[in-house]
């Protein structure tokens, strides 16, 4: 693989998979109060 190709592959991985990791961490840290109404679980 050429250096350019390796660089672009790494950049894509860092931005996209890194973005996903950040999004998950952010959601876990700032996640909303989960609503658990009795009726919403009726079909569990």
């Amino acid at each position: 693989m050429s250096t350019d190709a390796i660089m672009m592959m790494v950049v894509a991985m860092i931005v996209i998979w890194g973005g996903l990791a950040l999004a998950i961490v952010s959601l876990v840290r700032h996640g909303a109060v989960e609503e658990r109404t009795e009726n919403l679980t009726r079909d569990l």
Partner: protein
Amino acid sequence: MSATAGRATAQPDQEGRRGGFSSRRVFILAAIGSAVGLGNIWRFPYVAYENGGGAFVVPYLVALLTAGIPFLLLDYAIGHRNRGSAPLSFARLRRGAEGLGWWQVGICFVIAIYYAAVIAWALRYTFFSLDEAWGADPEGFFFGEFLQAGDVEVTADVVPGVLVPLALVWLAVLAIMVLGVQRGIGATSVIFIPVLVLAFAALVVQALFLPGAADGLDALFTPDWSALTSAPVWAAAFGQIFFSLSIGFGIMITYASYVGRREDMVGSGLVVGFSNSGFELLAGIGVFAALGFMAQAGGVAVGEVASGGIGLAFIAFPTIISEAPAGALIGVLFFASLVIAGITSLVSVIEVVISAVRDKLDTSRRAATVAVVVPAALLSLALFSTTSGIYVLDVVDHFVNQYGILVVALVSMLVVAWALRALTGLGEHLNVHGRPRVGTGWRVLTSVVAPVGLALVLVFALRDDLRAPYEDYPSWLLLVFGWLLAAVLPLVGFLLARLPWRAGTHLDGPPPGSDPAAPLDVTATADPTPRDRPGSGHDEGGLR
């Protein structure tokens, strides 16, 4: 006081009957299941390769961040705030906008009937992989022995080898949908999305160890920076993001309506958006590593074997499977991934229709599911299990995507942003529990940048289709299953919008009790419609 108590239970009871995801995790997995479909596996790698290789990362990320995720959040806001299917959510925004929702429902119905056929092919090929049933000529096998495709015409000559798996796919869909939002769609996603990721990751690892894999990755990621000045490349990036994320045609509106009212929809949207792109990147690596092997085995350049869509899945991959060590394993992993990705997307598409029928007619889950899935299955079997199925499928897919999804998404986005001026209210709704907050930037992206991006995609598609007949198909085929079909869907949509809603349906604004800022212990105000009464039979599960 007794009135307050009654009010406190009305809305949850209504939502309970309508159904809902039991948690944020289930919703996110279901939304990922919808977004990650066949296009992630067989469309993205080739689109990236054809449009600048590694340089495509730049317009792709720009499109994701400026149009894809903002539009996804718009869909979430519409469905989550208005707590209804696409037609009901649009009707609650403005009664005259209901037709947009039915237009989206019509598109989903059409997509479902042909999408199931491709899943059926992949299902059959999962088993073909075990003994490499295509022999030395995968292309001849696919079009000849398997599909029995003849001249380009519409026939009623049934192909049993397609009919049986297609019927099985529809039976599976019927079973999933009749179980309801949580036990059907939710449970399917919770089980199959991790399986999909693991199966595809195993496939990628296997592909990376094939000789020639590095050449494939080199072809995919070597940047052609001159592509960044090309408008069609930017249109391809916006098109890929748009088609891949399941936005703009009712799916995300419907799914968001099943999420608890205090949920962080912005954070969830970011996770779904990046998960979808993350899977696409994984698919690109796996597919091009395998194509690199195929090129090396054939002694040709990667560019000569690179393909996308049906050609990649049913011709190139069988060739790879025949030549690679442990080819059967690669085949099973690849086609099983297609089946899983396809099924989780198909159920989301058909749920748009079922949800709309339930909201409009106040039917039980089971009745609405049968009323939608059975006709869809019969149409699907009649059109796509015949010797002409591949041609009709190709034309319908092209035109419904380009002039169905794309146009309805563009029109609904413009209507919501500019005619209804609803973005401020929708943004405020997202911000009640959402982080990061959306503000002026989001409104500019959804009202200007995303529509311009979609318009660009539409203009290039229109230019290509007017310049030459799509794939050189006969004019009558393109007219009937292409242009006419795309034109009829909005007409049907706005006609359906003229049908009256069930008595007592709340249409003016978000329904009572849906305020996400309301404290949990006072959950609702009264909406004393007949469906709120206990024992109305409007239950989510439908089987109890």
